[in-house]
Structure formats: C-alpha cells, structure tokens
C-alpha cells in the first residue's frame, strides 16, 4: 500500500485516517521560525461526509486509500439496494440507501452517475451535475405567465421537490442542477 508524506498532501488525495477513507481538501504548512513544523490539514471523511481539521508533524505519513470515482449507469431499485453497472465491463454494484444518500433524489433508471468505490465497494454516489426529470405533481399554473417570477413547488418522478416557474405543468420534463437543486429549464421533446 502506498504511503504519502505530509509534503505530498494536496487537495483531492485519498488517504486512510482513523481507519476511514478520507479526501484531503487543504494542507497548510505551519512552522515557527524556531520550532517544530506542522501541517494543518483539512480533510473530508468519505464515509460520513464530515470535514475535520487535523494537525500532523511535518514528515509524518498516511496510507493511501484505494478510492476511485467510476462512472456507472443506474439500473434499478429492488427496495433494499440500488443497482449500478459499469458500461464497459458490465460489472455490477449494489448500494444500500445509507450509501446512496441524497443522490437518490436525482437517480432515474438508465441515467449515468458517479459511484465512489473504496476497496471495490460503493462508498458514495454522486449524480450527474444536470439531470432531466418529469414532473408528477404541481399546482396548475397561470396560463400565459412566462415571467418566471414567483414560482411553485413541483414533485418529480424521483420524489425530489423543486421550485419551478408558474407556467410549468405536470407531465413536462425539466432540467435540474443537482448541486443546488435548482430548476434550469424545460426540456422540449
């Protein structure tokens, strides 16, 4: 297993800390003119998503974490697990709700997403930045209103609720930014 020293720590590096896989966000070198050098590291626990700060003596090292983001197609939900497949190899993975987390709000059958694998097991799921989903529930809007001002809640096939302009109707497909949960536009057939 590869080992990284504090001077190799940089944003995005995946390492093991307290037996959990983590991603380094920021690494600041702290050194008094006369005295011990430290590295103050901001780090995200990839299992819990929590961000913590941890100080290391410069020169200390951490084991690398076998963590990769793989693009996969979301297949289906069997009630307990969601199933994913790598297009090139047809290799399949299944992930429980705890791991899929909020990504479930944006996963439509056959859509592509990123699955983070740790030691070849799903650790987290990240939807595409933009997804297209159908509206299944919303108040009838005022016809002719195209201003986009105001807006109303709309429920999508996946269960997500998004604020949409008044003119958008049930049955229409809309494009949503999954990072902010914001409506982008209607999608024309």
């Amino acid at each position: 297993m590869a080992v990284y020293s504090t001077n190799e720590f940089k944003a995005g590096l995946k390492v093991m800390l307290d037996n959990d896989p983590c991603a380094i966000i920021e690494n600041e070198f702290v050194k008094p003119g006369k005295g011990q050098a430290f590295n103050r590291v901001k780090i995200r626990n990839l299992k819990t998503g929590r961000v913590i700060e941890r100080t290391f003596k410069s020169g200390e090292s951490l084991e690398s974490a076998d963590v990769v983001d793989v693009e996969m197609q979301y297949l289906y939900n069997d009630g307990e697990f969601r199933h994913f497949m790598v297009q090139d190899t047809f290799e399949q993975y299944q992930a429980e709700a705890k791991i899929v987390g909020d990504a479930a709000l944006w996963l439509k059958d056959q859509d592509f997403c990123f699955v983070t694998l740790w030691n070849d097991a799903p650790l987290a799921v990240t939807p595409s930045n933009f997804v297209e989903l159908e509206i299944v529930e919303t108040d009838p809007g005022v016809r002719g209103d195209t201003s986009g001002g105001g807006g109303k809640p709309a429920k999508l096939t996946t269960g997500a609720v998004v604020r949409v302009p008044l003119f958008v109707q049930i049955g229409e497909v809309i494009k949503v930014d999954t990072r902010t949960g914001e409506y982008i536009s209607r999608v024309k057939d």
Partner: protein
Amino acid sequence: MRYDWQPSCSLEALHLRARLLHDIRAFFQARSVLEVETPLLCHSTGTDPQLAFFSTDFHSLPHRQALFLQTSPEFAMKRLLAAGSGSIYQICKAFRNGEVGRFHNPEFTLLEWYRVGFTLQALMDEVADLFAELFKGQGLQATQRLSYQSVFRQYTGLDPLQFCYGDYCTYALASGLPEAVTLCGDDHLLWLDMLFSHKIQPFLGANALCMVYGYPACQPSLAKVSADNPLTVERVELFINGIELGNGYYELTDATEQASRFNKEIRQRQEQKLPAVIEDGRLLAALAAGLPECAGIAIGLDRLLMLLGAATTIGDTLSFPVDRA
C-alpha cells in the same frame, strides 16, 4: 510545455519592495548602524534540528568539500561584532530546506541587525520605531508587549513554564486539538510549539505589532537566560495579524554555554537521524575572544511585504517563488 515565465507578484509589489529596502536603509543610516555583507555560502551552519539546510559541493582541486547555504547570517555577523564592528545590519537571503507554503519560501529575504550595548527592551523600542516608520499611514494600532507566559495563560489557561501533562491534555481535548495528546506526548517543547502556533499565534497583533518576550528556557536558541528568572530566556518574537515576522535575542556571549548548546543540538540531530553538522568553530573562537554585550533581531521582509501589500501568499511578494525560480 508551457513555461510560467512571468513574475508571480504584481509590478506594484516590485516597487513596494524597493521602497521598503530604501526606508530600512534610511532608518539605519540615520542611526549610524553600519550596513554589512556576509557570505551566503559557508563552511558550517546552524545546528538547530528544526532547520533543514541546503548543502552544495565546492570543487577546489584537489579537494572537494561541502559548503552550506546559510539558514541565517547570525554567526558571521557575530564574528564581525567580536572583531569590533560596532552596531551592524544586513539585508540578505537566507535558505531553509523543505519550507514551502503560504508563508514560506525556501529562499527568503531577511533584515538582521545587532545593537552593541542594547538590552532586549532597548532593541524592542527600536523595533517599534522601525515599524512606526515602515507602516506610516497604514493605521497600525499601538504596539503591544506581552510576556510569553501571560499570553499563553490568556489563551489557554496553561502555564508554559511548568509542564503539567494532565492539564495540557485536558486543554487539548477540550479545545478541538485532541491529536496533540498523541503527537506531543511528554515532550514539553513540542506541546509549546503546537499550542502556540495553533491556539495563540493566529490571534496575536490584530492590526498591531505584538512583541512576545520571555520565552521558556527550553527554547533558548541563542538567547541569554533571563537574569531575574532562570525559567525564561531573553528572546522576543514579533507578530502582526497572526503572522510571525521576527525573532530577537539579548545575545548569548558565553563561548562555553554556546558550545554546550551546539553539542546538545548535534546530539538531537543524531537521535533524529538528521543530516550531521559540526559546530561552527569560528563562531566559538569569536565568542571566546569576546562578543560585546548586544541585542539582535532578524525580520522576514517577504512577510513584512505581505502585510504592507495586503497579500495572501508569500508568492504575491516574490518575483519568482521556488516553483518558478
């Protein structure tokens, strides 16, 4: 390959640096302090285990020998003082291996000066005068002078001069720094470095020059032990907006004491398997011949420029930091 040939600092920053150098020289000229130059490339270097040096091969046939890029001009300047130079200052480069970050570049510019006959308090007065001059019109608040012990107590409630393992651990666990317990163990000096740099330094000198003096005796460096308290040394550090700017001493003049501190650090280097160095025999000989009573201080000019130019990284003040040098 695309070369990043352009300077990392703005052209204004070049002017700011030129003006700073001019202002410093004018300040010392008005006080009759002599500007000197000493070698960057030396036969010996500091023994401080916390400072990593650069060394290089000198080819002078038939011999080859290692020369060191100096981590500080201190030893050479003290030899000038012992030779009777009187008060001197120098603006030069210093080199510290492995130090790179937002506030560090392995090659950096130092202002270092020595005042013959000055106490540490008198030197601190002069530092305050210099900063008043350099920061004129920048609205710097009144200078603060705090003892290490008082500032340590203020921010952590701990006594830095008496190591109480239980109290230190309790504080670390309660203040979001639990890793200190395993990292520092029973090493008092390491605890002080970690707590000071994480829990105290960031808050020192909010828009003001803050001078912290009376460092614990376990961090003596090249300072005299305080006459009135054997637990502290006559050492001062400067901070503005949490940035460490300088380090000064009422200088150790005793050759025997200096030799014993060298030996202690050389032993620490061996224990930590760090590159070996030998003591600077020429400095010891100069001290034996007689270093006049004096106080001296070194100030990092690149960091000073960060403050004067409101820069966020040291690279904003350097023409070419190490990654594009």
